[in-house]
């Protein structure tokens, strides 16, 4: 076939942007190749591991099974958007560091963006609920316990409650 391109306009990490995109591209392809947002990892590429997870209009999506053309008019957030202009980390990122919720780091951006979505609900979840909310991500290093602790830590802190591990 002749290659089919389309102009895609969207908001990425607070900036209005537009680029000509190959219609065969996934959102992962577009974010990595056109915008150099390499926190968006290519993992399984079939929507199982969550390494490519980004927020679209505030909800978590596996960008590997999301067509780039569907980004038209949407608000997209990646891990890069969490960093403040002076380079300091967000509370979620900092908690992942403090709780050693990272080893190789490949799953981390995906986990962190899901955590951002979870905590935006401003609710106090039980461990069981948090495990379910985090279940769309695979981590082969940490065994998940430290990730759960990091998420819980920020959840309690943001709600102004004592941490109860």
């Amino acid at each position, binding site marked *: *076939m002749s290659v*089919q391109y389309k102009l895609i306009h969207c908001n990425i990490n607070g900036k209005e942007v537009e680029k000509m995109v*190959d*219609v*065969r*591209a*996934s959102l992962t*392809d577009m974010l990595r190749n056109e915008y150099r947002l390499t926190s968006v990892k290519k993992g399984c*590429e*079939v*929507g*199982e591991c*969550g390494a490519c*997870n980004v927020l679209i209009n505030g*909800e*978590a*999506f*596996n960008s590997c*099974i*999301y*067509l780039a*053309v*569907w980004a*038209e008019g949407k608000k997209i957030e990646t891990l890069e958007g969490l960093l403040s202009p002076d380079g300091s980390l967000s509370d979620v990122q900092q908690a992942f560091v403090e709780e050693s919720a990272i080893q190789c780091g490949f799953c981390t951006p995906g986990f962190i963006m*899901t955590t951002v979505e979870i905590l935006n609900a401003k609710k106090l979840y039980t461990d069981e609920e948090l495990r*379910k*909310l985090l*279940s*769309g*991500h695979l981590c082969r290093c940490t065994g998940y316990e430290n990730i759960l602790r990091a998420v819980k830590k920020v959840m309690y802190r943001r709600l102004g409650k004592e941490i109860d591990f």
Partner: protein
Amino acid sequence: MYDMKALYEAQSVEDAIRLRIEHPEAQIIAGGSDVLVQMREGKRAGKELISIYMIDDMRGVSLDEEENLRIGSLTSFSHITRDPLIQKYCNVLGEAVDQVGSPQIRNIGTIGGNTCNGVTSADSASTLHAWEAIVELTGSKGVRRVPIKDFYIKAGTVDIAPDEIQTAILIPKTSYENTYGHYIKYGLRNAMEIATLGCSVNVRLSTDKKTIDRCRIAYGVAGPVPMRCPSAEAVANGAEPTKELAKKFSHAVIDDINPRDSWRASKAFRQHIAVEMAERALEKAVELAGGEMK
């Protein structure tokens, strides 16, 4: 990059119908969590796609003029679970689709895609059968409404004409009124799992809560397509909700279901858990309806 031949994007239902007629070979893609994965795996590689994902008119839950529950086909699983109308009138559907895949899959997966796939294991399918949902299809000649049991023709095949797309799923008022249901999914793990067996039971009790006025039960993966169990329903209809009845009811499902041996589970195991799930789901449904299992 996906190995696709061409992508046609529909911005409206009319657009989608026109594209269906212009490109008869093309595959419809809604959320894409099945189609894109199959394309990646090579099964649908090199095909043309008609994307309907951007048709926002096909999203959302509402009550129509006859107070039937109307679920737009592109409504995502997570939006169904969170919807106040679903929570009020058909909570079990929200609970059932909350067991699909993972949170991210539930944000992209649509109820239309889940049913148009025609797979027996779809988490929405047993509940939609048990609640006698109506499938709304829109085509060049207008709107057609098909009962869900007729919509499923055989494994992987549903009743959609070449010029049609599914635009909504309706749950009639007569079906949801005073009705309470429960869904049980049996899988080997909690997340990212396809049901070994899914069982959805709902009941409507008499005003004094002493009689089951209407009981409906449906399974996914108990046959090539989702199915109701008329023999079991006949046992429960008009009966008093007792533990003994639940036992009789659950054993009657064996006459109705036809599970197969697969790598996931044997036929014998599926039959075994089908009985157990029917009993538990009936007890829970009666409890939700305000009744008591004596």
